[in-house]
């Protein structure tokens, strides 16, 4: 197992290198570069002056030299400065990463807690009106764009009902401390979390339904029924335990779509996270921040898929990664 984890981690290295090189090249092709930030408007547009700045920043080097330089700096913790805020990128990202993890983690948890029972009930009452309603609603749920759901929620729950704030993470005018500030953040979190979770709930409950139906068709379930175990017991003790295993993989491979969802949700609800930082960076052509957000998302995606595979092997003794 340890060997498998080490091998997977080693495989992630070339993966990250390719992704970073790809992003680096795309950003290079794009118009504008770091020199613009350092140009002093007083000294104007003198070509020699601009050339001097470019040389100081190393921008006159060929692209592969600059990529290696960027890689070295990034690995040593120097992620450069944001063009827009002029703060260190590490600070910009460090401020926002916990907020995104809080929002995304809660949304994943909420999705799991809701999707599993929904899928189980749907599979248990297969071809009943409940099942029909659930499968149809989940298809509707995956079809509605997340940003429209967000606008809908803002209109209904924030504007009409005035139950929750429509944007931000904290009340700007209040100076809460201690528990009050925790509750304040929770209050701001509710709408974006639900919006971010909805798309997952719809897809996962469908998946949980078919996973459970698959397991219910297996021989050992027939055996359990044959020896007279009660249906409810068969379902919960025998079937559900195995039907939950594929959900582990599903949670892992859903992380990219949660990341995508976070970009949109954070932007609409003005949630101060990585996603909103990324969207703002792209609009403002803030290249150091763009590179940082892209690489962080890639690391997040690769790590979560590794974690899912490890958890899968741990939960299902039939799967072992030792061979080969």
């Amino acid at each position, binding site marked *: 197992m340890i060997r498998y984890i080490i091998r997977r981690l080693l495989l992630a290295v070339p993966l990250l290198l390719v992704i970073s090189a*790809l992003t680096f090249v795309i950003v290079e092709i794009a118009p504008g570069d770091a020199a613009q930030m350092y140009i002093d408007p007083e000294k104007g547009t003198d070509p020699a002056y601009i050339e001097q700045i470019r040389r100081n920043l190393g921008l006159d080097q060929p692209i592969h030299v600059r990529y290696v330089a960027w890689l070295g700096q990034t690995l040593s913790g120097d992620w450069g400065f944001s063009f827009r805020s002029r703060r260190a990128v590490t600070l910009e990202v460090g401020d926002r990463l916990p907020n995104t993890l809080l929002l995304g983690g809660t949304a994943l948890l909420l999705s799991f807690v809701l999707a599993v029972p929904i899928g189980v009930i749907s599979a248990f009452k297969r071809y009943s009106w409940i099942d029909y309603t659930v499968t149809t609603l989940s298809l509707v749920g995956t*079809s509605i*764009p997340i940003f429209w759901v967000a*606008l809908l929620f803002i209109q209904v729950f924030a504007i009409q009902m005035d139950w929750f704030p429509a944007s931000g993470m904290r009340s700007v005018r209040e100076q809460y401390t201690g528990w009050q500030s925790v509750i304040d953040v929770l209050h701001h979190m509710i709408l974006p979390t639900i919006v971010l979770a909805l798309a997952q709930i719809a897809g996962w409950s469908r998946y949980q339904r078919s996973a459970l139906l*698959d397991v219910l068709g297996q021989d050992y379930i027939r055996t359990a029924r044959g020896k007279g175990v009660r249906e409810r017991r068969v379902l919960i003790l025998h079937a559900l335990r195995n039907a939950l295993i594929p959900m582990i993989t599903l949670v892992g491979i859903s992380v990219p779509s949660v990341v995508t969802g976070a970009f949109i949700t954070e932007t609409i609800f003005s949630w101060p996270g990585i996603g909103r930082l990324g*969207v703002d960076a*792209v609009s403002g052509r803030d290249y150091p921040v763009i590179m940082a957000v892209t690489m962080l998302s*890639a690391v997040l*995606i*690769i790590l979560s898929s590794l974690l899912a595979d490890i958890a899968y092997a741990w939960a299902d003794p039939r799967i072992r990664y030792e061979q080969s």
Partner: protein
Amino acid sequence: MSSRSSTLPLSLVSDQHRNEVRGWQLFRRHRLALASGLLLLMFIGIAVFADQVTPYDPNATNTDYARGKPQAPSFEYALGTDNYGRDYLSRTISGVRVSLFVGISAVIFQLLIGVTIGALAGYFGGWLDNLLMRITDIFLAIPAFMLLLILAGILGGTLLALIFAIGALNWMTVARLVRGQFLSLREREFVMAGQCIGASHWRLIAVYILPNTISSIIVAATLSIPGAILTESALSFLGLGVPPPNASLGNMLGGAQQWIRTAWWMWIVPGATISLIVLAFNFVGDGLRDALDPQLR
């Protein structure tokens, strides 16, 4: 079939009744797929004849009429206007055209890449398979939406760039699907028969094996279009997709954000239209899967 033994919650019900229930379910489901198919045909018709059916030029402003505020639906403007006095019905129709065009073209593009890579990997196997699947893995680990944002935002949001970007980042599922099918199909007798009469690799791939994968490709393609449409509208919503003043359902929603309190039609109409189109594609895809692919129910 496993589905039979897994209907055990109904185990007390007689076989005949179970079949009736199931038949009715399938019928109801297919009726939904049929209705969705008709709806899609209507949308496609509207998109193709957009120039003929739009009551106004979708980009023409009527500032005297609007005076900086969205105008509610009226006899003149069936779905109202936006704050520039542009007819919302015409913009919605034009947005439907953009959504369908980008969605369908991007999926065609991703099929071209995905089917080629999947077929080559599955047919030849060996080091080529290994190489192509590693490339697929890399693309699967790419934070696709961030890269799309960068491509669309920095390289300029033209329709062709959008189609290229969405297609280039979403072919992996199709590639894996086609590879799997090729892996099992290439061992079958009819392929060996083809080899024996001296058919070339290219002929074996294109004439012998590929036609057998068409039904799963059609299902996968139909179910990919919603994703492509949602991606386009999300990018446009964030202001990085279809460039203004051209209408897309996504950038109409983006523009509606600041009028959410006052002008309900501005955010209800485009959002409902996207949802309807995507839902219809999903229903048709589900129906096709039931009809073409009995193992994958």
